């Protein structure tokens, strides 16, 4: 009789703290570098950044001037030639055809109308690269979508796309969910966005846009966000027993059992030789039998 196997308690994971835990110790290659920033496009953040940048520039300029003054005083005291006065740095002008689209104040009537209808449920509205974005509170998603679809002056009949992004570095939320709406009759596009924390179940858009069915299933499959009142909340692209959610930033890009030596990068054949030696030590002959 064999002894009953004692259930082993897995070691406490260090990073990251998601719902799924990867055993990085078993495969160090699967270690991932998590992003440090939260690249969530937003007018507020942009403005804050601009202000901060201006302040930083100003501070730098002040410091340069102060440095110059001290250097000048020092030079005068030592009787040397005075250093050159500092020049205020101007932003470098690139000679190229790029014109970075920054977030702008919302001027489109659709956004204003939506803001008027939803009131304080709207967190933010802005335009960027000619696209309209309306960020609403996560509880008000259903209401916002219904207004977009039914309101006579909005009439966004079609849900073109629905997807999400993972922001592991963010404090008060983990995902942004975007709904790309298209108005076929008015030839307009609108993006409705919500920010959801880990574990929050947003309402499904299936009752408003039946086409959201597979899109939300894909979002669940890839990011692990479950939707409330969804008719069939199962995985769609990955197998049903798949572990983890691939499009989260903590999901490694190296698969289980992927070979440690990438032979494509082994130009000199050194690694190949080492691999064959190692295999030889294990009693495996990898060499092709050669005729005499």
């Amino acid at each position, binding site marked *: 009789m064999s002894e009953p196997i004692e259930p082993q308690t897995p070691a406490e994971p260090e990073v990251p703290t998601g719902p799924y835990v990867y055993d990085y110790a078993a495969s160090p290659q699967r270690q991932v570098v998590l*992003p440090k920033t939260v690249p969530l496009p937003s007018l507020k953040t942009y403005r804050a950044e601009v202000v901060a940048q201006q302040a930083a520039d100003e501070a730098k300029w002040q410091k340069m001037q102060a440095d110059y003054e001290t250097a000048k005083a020092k030079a005068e005291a030592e009787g040397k030639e005075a250093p050159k006065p500092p020049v205020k740095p101007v932003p470098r002008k690139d000679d190229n055809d790029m014109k970075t689209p920054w977030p702008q104040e919302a001027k489109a009537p659709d956004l204003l109308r939506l803001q008027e209808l939803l009131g304080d449920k709207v967190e933010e509205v802005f335009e960027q690269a000619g696209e309209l974005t309306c960020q609403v509170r996560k509880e008000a998603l259903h209401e916002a979508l219904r207004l977009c679809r039914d309101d006579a002056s909005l009439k966004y009949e079609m849900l073109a796309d629905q997807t999400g*992004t993972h922001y592991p570095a963010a404090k008060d939320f983990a995902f942004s969910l975007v709904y790309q709406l298209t108005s076929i009759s008015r030839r307009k596009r609108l993006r409705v966005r919500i920010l959801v924390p880990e574990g929050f179940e947003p309402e499904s858009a299936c009752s408003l846009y039946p086409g959201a069915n597979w899109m939300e299933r894909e979002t669940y499959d890839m990011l692990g966000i479950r939707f409330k009142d969804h008719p069939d909340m199962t995985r769609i692209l990955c197998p049903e027993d798949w572990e983890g959610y691939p499009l989260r930033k903590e999901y490694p890009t190296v698969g289980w059992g992927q070979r440690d030596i990438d032979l494509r990068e082994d130009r000199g054949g050194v690694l190949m030789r080492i691999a064959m030696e190692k295999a030889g030590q294990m009693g495996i002959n990898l060499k092709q039998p050669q005729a005499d």
Partner: protein
Amino acid sequence: MFKNEEMEINLGPQHPSTHGVLRVKLRLDGETVVKCTPIIGYLHRGVEKICENKTFFQGQVWTDRMDYVAAISNNLGWAEGVEKLFGIEVPRRARYIRTMLTEMNRLASHLLWLATHALDIGAMTVFLYTFREREYLLDLFEAFCGARLTTTAFRIGGLREDLPPGFIKQAQAFQDIFLDCMEEYETLLSENRIWKKRTVGVAKINAEDCIALGITGPVLRAAGVPYDIRKAFPSAAYAEMDFEIPTRPEADTYARYLVRLAEMRQSHRIIQQCIDGLPEGPVMAKIPKILKSEVNEVYHSIEAPKGELGYYFVGEKGGTTPYRMHVRAPSFVNMQALSKMVEGRLLADVIAAIGTLDVVLGEIDR
């Protein structure tokens, strides 16, 4: 003594007419479909995850592998999406060449659709006729970028090279024969009694359902909705082109067949306009060697042969790779219509419905 039993069969993943590795779980009562459940994901390669780890230039290579019969359309969507993210202005000549190649690709894709759709319904000859013309188009692609199927035709900011010498002449030669070739297909199919019997009134889906389900492309236009992204949100040089949006009110398989054929004629027109009005000038915008994005998100969509192909990018500050990339694949969304189209109809109609949706599994599964 007698009992009625439903049979469950798996159409696919290995089946001659599921256009790849689509699996459709069918519950049959005799030959009548009681329930139809499409099951996808057999070709999932994680293109979105891969593209998050590739630079903006490298990612385009992966778009070829999605809708592999219309790779140039995918390239166009990627290139224009990234250009929108960075705010790059593309030279006019490059936009014309892009338009021309994309329309040629639309022809190639529609030819392949006609071939496989007709073959599914049993008309074998059309298959080989359309492949004859598709071969010509693939040769043109090869002359332009060296690849026939996985083209990676464009670069961010324009084109890598101008058209090779003699390309316009060859394209014109194709233009001259193509309409006659289309006559050939129509002679075989359009008024064929059996073809009409198999397609008229089959796999209907009306305009309301189409819009609710997010279905775009020829399927939506065959339901009478003149929604074409080339007209509604024009990109490349489509705003300068003169063409029509063919629509039909019937919303059945035959209407989709007619709409796609009419679309091929319109594509022919657009190519001719591109050839005639090709402007001179540079083909590449001035952009830095390494693109570093700002915090921004864009959703850019183009009219791919199958429908609305959208790219969603999120850029991070100073990032050389997209922070997040998502593809709105037309086949993925259109596939949802299958159950609605075939439930209550016969097994042979499932095949016709899959054919008329014109799905490519590389794009559905990504």
